[in-house]
């Protein structure tokens, strides 16, 4: 393991003050399930961070709150806490589903939603679910607060627009309404302890049996995570049906190819993301997988 100093902070202010001076040479550690693997990979002759900043003791960055309209999740909340939260299970169930698929029990006990977002893996499980919830993220620094839609922070794989002096402090999204149905599906090489090969999050909002709003966000599919509007449009004003869901799935495939071109993985991803999307839509409305 390369050498580095370890600084633990107990308050957000201490953390932000530290980062305002040392942000560029500092890596923040929370759950450590991504960072420790990354640090281990740094060769002895490569430059690593001077300091690892442990923010796990910081109060006020954990917890899930519901004010009746908006749900706010502290960035240090673990996936275990999210998957078992009564608030999330009732008003954002697909996020509980997504977080329950991350790694295994040992990871979910310490890994955080903030880390999953900022690590920026295209295969991150919580991100498509959060994007389908129209989530916003809050960054803080000594200069103040910055709020972005989650889908807008990604520059490229493993890179968000977080600045060296910033910390992601919370994530927030509107509650899903009563007439919403949602689902998350993950495809991995194993049923547990697996990285997403692809995944997809869907939200459908109904009125009198017809879909009036649709949100589809696939993971490991597009250059940066986003909603697939051409596929969503197909569903509007229609009643759920096998055929309709397959059309939407095909549209996700087409958009993937339009954005990323045909690559070595396309012969596999093209039919599979279409099938996963259709499957997720069926799961959301209870049609059976």
């Amino acid at each position, binding site marked *: *393991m390369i050498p*580095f100093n370890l600084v633990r902070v107990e308050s957000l202010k201490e953390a932000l003050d530290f980062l305002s001076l040392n942000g560029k040479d500092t890596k923040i550690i929370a759950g450590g*399930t991504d960072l*420790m693997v990354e640090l*281990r990979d740094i060769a002895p002759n490569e430059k690593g961070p001077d300091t690892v900043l442990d923010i796990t003791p910081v109060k006020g960055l954990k917890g899930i709150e519901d004010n009746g309209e908006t749900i706010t999740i502290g960035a240090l909340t673990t996936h275990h806490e999210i998957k078992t939260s009564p608030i999330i299970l009732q008003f954002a169930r697909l996020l509980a589903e997504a977080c329950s698929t991350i790694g295994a029990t*040992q990871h979910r006990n*310490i890994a955080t939603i903030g880390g999953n977002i900022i690590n920026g893996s295209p295969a991150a499980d919580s991100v498509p679910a959060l994007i389908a919830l129209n989530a916003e993220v809050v960054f803080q620094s000594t200069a103040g607060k910055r709020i972005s839609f989650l889908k807008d922070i990604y520059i490229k794989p493993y890179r968000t627009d977080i600045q060296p002096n910033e910390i992601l402090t919370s994530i927030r999204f509107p509650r899903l309404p009563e007439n919403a149905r949602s689902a998350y599906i993950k495809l991995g090489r194993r049923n*547990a302890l697996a990285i997403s090969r692809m995944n997809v999050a869907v939200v459908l909002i109904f009125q009198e049996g017809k879909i009036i709003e649709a949100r589809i966000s696939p993971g490991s599919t597009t250059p940066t995570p986003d909603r697939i509007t051409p596929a969503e449009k197909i569903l509007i004003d229609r009643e759920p049906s096998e055929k309709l869901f397959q059309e939407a799935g095909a549209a996700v495939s087409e958009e993937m190819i339009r954005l990323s071109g045909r690559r070595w993985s396309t012969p596999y991803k093209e039919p599979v993301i279409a099938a996963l999307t259709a499957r997720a839509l069926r799961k959301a409305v209870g049609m059976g997988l």
Partner: protein
Amino acid sequence: MKKFILHITVNGDSHVLRIDPNLRLIDLLRDQLRLTGTKEGCGIGECGACTVLLDGQAVNSCLVLAGQCEGREITTIEGITPENGLNPLQKAFIEHGAVQCGFCTPGMILSAQALIDHNPDPTEAEIRTAISGNLCRCTGYMQIIEAVQAVVNGAKNKL
């Protein structure tokens, strides 16, 4: 590197240690405290052989910096083994053929122990989820699940 002063409780014993800041928890346990029951199978959190309990929750000790455990409690396999003999899970693992090479066993037992501590009457699905982070290349897992179920049922029968 600036040495880090760590206050940590391991298996009920309090320690104050001067450590390197980049020391992993697994290395603190194995190399410095000589608790070699915890095994390193992969070093990247993908096998669970290094599982220990951090404040009662199963974690991969290869992914935790020792310094992050300031003021906290660690339980290793040694910590749940009675002075003379074996605990119920250990006995059941042996009785049900759930130990072959034994390398996954300490981590596997701790994951099962953490489950039973939080949920004394788990379903088979819950048992499978609890051990889903512990890979076993030898047994095929059925004997392990049966051993855990035997302990759960044994405890229920005593009530």
